[in-house]
Every structure is written in C-alpha cells, then in structure tokens.
C-alpha cells in the first residue's frame, strides 16, 4: 500500500515537473490584451472565431463589458497585427485597424456597434 502511494506521488510529481518545464516554453506563448469594438454574444463568437482562425493563436477571449480581447499566441507563427487585421476584416474595429465599411454594414443588426 505504501509502495503504491509512493509510486502515485512520484508519478504526480514527475508529471508536475514535466508540466513545469512546459511552462518554460511560455516564451512561445505571449499574452496580449487589446480593445475590440462590439456589443453582443454574436460579436463575441465572431471576434473569437476570427482570432482563432489566425495560425498560432491558441486562445481568444473577448469580454463583452470591457470590450477587451485577451489572446494567447505563438509569436513565431503570427504577429499581433495579423490578429488585429483579421478581426477588422470580419467587421470589428480595434485599437489598430478599422473594419472596412462594407463589412461593417453587413453585420447583423444587433451587432452594429457604435463606431468611434
């Protein structure tokens, strides 16, 4: 029984260690936050989908209330501007790029955010 416990704990610690070395790779994962204009759940899905469609983006989370998008991506595979331009291309203004007017005009009526 004690032997088993030892095996289990060492296994756990070992995996813990490997995952710790995993976090050393964090340099391959940058977290960035920026402002993206939008209003509703549908905007959220569209923005996150657009961000995730960029190769190298691992996570995208847009908060409706603060309008802040948090992205985690691999800088070797894409740049922050790749993500921002992709989001603008699907109709959402952000702090660097403005969405093309025709794309904005075609957004669902509930998604028509106020442009600044």
């Amino acid at each position, binding site marked *: 029984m004690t032997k088993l416990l030892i095996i*289990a704990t060492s296994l756990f610690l070992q995996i813990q260690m490997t*995952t710790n070395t995993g976090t050393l790779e964090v340099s391959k994962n940058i*977290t960035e936050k920026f402002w993206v204009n939008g209003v509703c759940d549908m905007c959220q899905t569209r923005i*996150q*989908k657009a961000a995730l469609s960029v190769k190298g*983006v691992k996570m995208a989370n847009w908060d409706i209330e*603060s309008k802040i998008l948090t992205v*985690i991506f691999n800088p070797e595979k894409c740049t922050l501007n790749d993500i921002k331009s992709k989001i603008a291309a699907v109709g959402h203004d952000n*702090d660097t790029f403005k969405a093309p007017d025709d794309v904005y005009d075609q957004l669902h009526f509930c998604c028509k955010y106020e442009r*600044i």
Partner: protein
Amino acid sequence: MSKFLIWGMLVFPYFLWGQTTLQGKISVLEGNEKVPIQWVDVRWMDTKIYTQTDVNGAFEIKYSSDHNALIISHLGYKTDTIQISKITNIDHTLTLNNTLNEVTLVQKKKDFYVSHAGVNLSEVLNKGELLKAACCNLSESFETNPSIDVTFTDAVTGIKQIQMLGLSSPYLQFNQENIPGIRGANQLYGFGFIPGTWVESIQISKGAGSVLNGYESISGQVNFELKKPETSDGAFLNLYASQNGRMEVNADYSHLIGKHLSTGIFIHGNSLQIKNDHNEDGFLDTPIGQQINVMNRWNYDDTHHNWHTSLILRYLKDERQAGQMDFNPDQHALTSIYWGSETDIEKMDTYFKIGKVFPDLPYKSMGFQANYSYHNQDSYYGLNTYKIKQNSLYFNYIYQSILTNTNHKFKTGLSFTRDLYKEYLNTTDYSRTDQSIGGFFEYNYDNGGKLSINAGLRGDHLNTWGFFVTPRLHLRYQIYEKTTLRASIGRGLRTANIWVENPQIFITNRSVDILNSGDGSYGLKPEIAWNTGINLLQTYRLGDRNGSITTEYYFTRFMNQVVVDFENARKVSIYNLDGKSVAHSFQVSLNQEIAKGLEMRIAFKNTFQKTDYLSGYLQKPLQAQQRYFVNLAYKTTLTEKNAQWHFDATLNHVGKMRIPDTSMNPSNFQLPTFSNGYFLMNAQINRNFSKNFSTYIGGENLLNTTQHHPILAHNSPFSSYFDGSMIYAPIDGSMIYIGLRYNITNSSR
C-alpha cells in the same frame, strides 16, 4: 494685460498637460484584507484608451475632460464603472463575481434545467429542485425527476434501487464530485448514506458518458456535488420527523480560516425506533435502526497561483433491524423462532483532490484525485449470515490542454483502482481482489458553433479480465438556435457484486445456484455492454413563457451480463448471459412555465428490457414498461423579507409489471402473471419565513397505494415458499412528514 494673457495662453496648456494622467490603485478583498491586483483592465468608456495595473495594483491612464467614466474589469470579478468628474487618485476594490450577485443569481438560477450547450444531454438539479421533496437522502432526491425510477429491492430490507434507461443502479455510475462514489459493497446502501442536506446539486447525464471517471458506467453518470464550506459559511440546522416515527437531524457549520482556507463539519443522525406493520403481515414495513454520519471537509484555494485543494473525511455507522414484529435479536437471532435480520455497516472515506490552472495559460490545467474507502457490513437475514468488508483505493490524474487552439481541447491521464473484498455468505468465502490500471485520452472539439464532438478512449488492465479498451463518442449538432440534436455511443464494463446488488435473494428461502463457475469474481465474467442514444432538445417561447421538449431514445445491448434469474419459484440462478439481453428506453418530457412562478413538467417513458433467461427470452420482471409523470411547482413572489411559499406536487402512473412465474407454488402462494398499474402521489408545502428560516410539511404516497401482503408465506417464514422479493408497489402507505431548516450566515463575509 495683453502680454499677460499671451503668456497665460502659452503656459496654461502645459499646466494642463502635466495634469492629464489619472492614477489609481486596484485591490481585491482576501478575507478582510485589501490586496493589490495585477493585470486589471482599466479603460475609458467608449474609447480605445486602455491600460492595465502593475504588480502593485497601480495604473496610470491618459485623462481628458471628455471622458467621464472608467471601466475596471478583471476575469472572475464584477466589472465596475466609476464616474470621474475631476482628477483624483482612484482607490478601488473589486468584488468577486459570485459574492456580489449571490442574491440575484439565486433567483435567476433555475431549479432544474437542460441545456443546448455541452456535448452530453445533462439534466441539472439545483438546491431549489432538491428542496421540493424532503430528500432525507440521495435516493429520495429523484422523486421529482422522471428520468430516474426509485424502487424497493424487496419487502423487508427497505433498500432502494435506482434505475435509469431501464437499467438498475449498478449500471449507472454515481460520482461524488467527479470521483466514483457509490460502488462496490456500498452499491445499494450507499444511496441512504448521503444525507439530502449535504447535497448542493446533482447532474444526470444519460448514455455513454466521459472516459475520465473509468470504464464502469453503462447507462449513464450521475454526479453529485456536496456543500462547499467556502460558499456555505455559517451554521445550518435541519430537523425532520415523519408520521411513522422517523426522526432526522442535520447540523453543519462552515468557517473561513484566513485568506485561503475553509472548513466545514457536517453531522447527520437519523433514527426510527417505532415498529410499524400497517399491512398486518407480521413483518416490519420499514426497518428500525439508526445512523450517525459525520463529514469534515477542508478546502484550500490559492487564487494567486490557481491551486485548489479539497479534502473530505467521513465516518458512518448504520444499524438496521428488519423482519418479524416479535423478533428480538437478543433471543431470536439466527433461530427459526422468528424471522429477523440485522445489518450493521461501518464506513470510512477519504477524498482528496488537488488541481491547478496555469495562470498565464488558462486552458492548461491538471488535477489529481484520490480516494480511500473502508466499508464493513456485518449482517444476517433469517438463518443466513452475510459479511462483506471492502478496502478500496482510487487514484486518477487528469491533464488538460489544447491542440493548436482552444477549439481543440484534450484531457489525458492515468487511473488506478484496487478493491479488496473479504466476503462471506455463511461459510462460503467469496474474498477477492479487483485491481485495474489504465490510461485515457479524450478529445473535445467545440468552436462555439453548431457542431461539437467529444471522443474518448481508454485502455485498462483488469487483473481478472486482462486488457480491454473503452471507446466513447458524443456528438452535438445545434440545428437551429433552439433545436439541438445529440447522439452518443459507448462501451462499459463492470464486475458484478452479486450479493450486495441483489439483497432480495436473502429475503427468500429459494436455493441459490451460481452456474458457469470458472475464473473471475464468483466464477462469473465481467458485464460488458454497448449503449447508444439519440436525443433532441427543443426550447421555445409561448407568449412570454419559456418551455422545452426533450425526446430521447437509448438502446443498450449486453455482450455479457450476470443474469439473476428468479423465474423458477424454488430457485435463484445466477449465470453469465447466454444469448441476448437488450434494454430500450424512450422518453418525452415537456417543461413549461404556465404562469409566473408556476412550472409544469410532464413526461412519458417507455422502458423495455428483455433477457435470455434459462426459461426463455423474457421481459425483465418487476419493472414497469410505462411511466407517466406530472409535476407542478408553484412559488409565490419573494417578499422584501425573503418570505415565500413553495407548493409542489408529483403524480406518477406506474404501468403493469411482469411477475416471475410462481405456478410451482401452492395456489395460495401464487401470483398473477402481471401486476396492475397504479398511481403514486407526493406533495410538499414549504414556507420560507426569511432568508434564514423555513418550515415544510409534506406527504408521500398520498393515495395510499400499497401492495397487500407483499411477502409470500409471511406466516411461515422458514417454509420453502417464503418470498419477499416479489415487489411491484410500495409497502408503506401514505406518510406525512414535517420539518424545519434554519441557517445563520456569518456576517463577516
């Protein structure tokens, strides 16, 4: 003068320039202490101007008089908007999302719901739903739910059995906070060992289920969450008494110790000392006895490093006496003067969980679960003694991350289970060890769109069976916004515990035959089954009322089954399935809000299980094929003082059941081929006087439906015709109960 004006015009903007940043500090409360917090988003409303707090919680943001509202947001905390009319130093404290919204959340949260999200069709029963019945223990929590049937195993022991999709509880996996909880020697008694007031919520998912919790589930998984000390801070008292003399006390106290640590102690006691025999068959309707059940749990949450640890320690002692009214254990135990039975169970459990989410990579997490359980049952039934002792050890490690991005998630890990059984029926030793070790991988696809997939595979090595794989697949397709189609297929395997799962064998004087004796537990092969299912959820709005319709069909096919055959009135035969065994289950349920506060649930269920017995391909005995269910729940509007009335009523129609062949018996001990259908009704009224105090009164089996003389040959319990296993209706008649609940919340939070 003009010179001064020019000078002033030149300098003034610079003067302003020097003032154009706004500074401040953001903190959060940990216990009663304010702690600065990093990475908080600070943004001027309707602008792109945005910054984040540093390690000290400090921020600096460009100021202009055009901006007048600052939005402060952080994941897990309530987003605040601060009106700014002039430059001041901001000192703001964020509040946790749940604590602030507690009151409103409780009202919004539905008591019962099914969701379009998630790959599995799962029904969630929240506190509100659980309060609809007295819910003395877990088995009674399902009274207001049509998916689960609760029946008695026999006329004497008072043991309840839970069924879903037409399959009884051993085929349904019960997890306590995602750790397999009610299994092995605890399989049936275990439902009576989880007091209702300890349960916070129950999630029922039908069909194959996830591979994370092992290979044992066949018809579905039920997970119950116990009260958490960090959210139930304070003291709670519940008293209950029923017409037949059952008394219950539940008392618990939870406390926060410092910033991260919380603990709770939960005590349950029940007792029934009055002997009742309403059907005048000389046998107790309900066993007498008492239970003491104590749980102590500790939670440690390190929000900075995202560690979460939970430890549960439990001790239980349960003593029951059943049998004839005049039976006195001191004089008559194991004699043929009076038929009697005593069951003493002692149980100890330790559950440990540790989990970590990587703060900078929120999609990555790992968890480790461990459980040690000791169960010791000492019992006799008439002239048979039965003892079982189980020592059980369980480890499970889960690692979760992503493939390319968060649309593709995976979970993988390793599990270990060891069950050491010491089991004796009279002088026969059935002791054995079941040990399994395995690994699993589960892939999940969900892009927030119409389609999601969950595909799992595990490989395990079981000492009595060897290596085997357990594949499981779930699909979800949201056809329209309010229409979701789900399908699942999966395999399950389990080792039967024939005596624990079939206590009704002991309530007969039939001879018992275990056929096919060979390797494995009791010389029987493990049970293997495939389960497939499809269901459609449609939600709608009728006027301004919400409603939903769920239609589902599940099919289970056994590759091997341990068949317990009561078809010969002199004998119980237990053997490996030779031929076919299937279970079909079709259910339609409708949930509809009728008026403000009034909800209705209607369901129709058709379950059909057919097995190749020695005497032929027959429908499973003592199981109703059809069940109709109606539940009405009405809540008055909550007054300012949090006073409220709750009314709840459930009406069931249980269809006819096939009764095993009794034609070998003398005519006075023969039963018809089919039982008649009957109605069952339960109702409860609950009165909340304030947030802290409520009382309730309720009734079970209000139509007084009973099975008259449920025991064959009850006057001669030592004759070969004695049989208390033929149960198709309640033994107890109508029963009224009352109770109260009182809680004091610690004001420090």
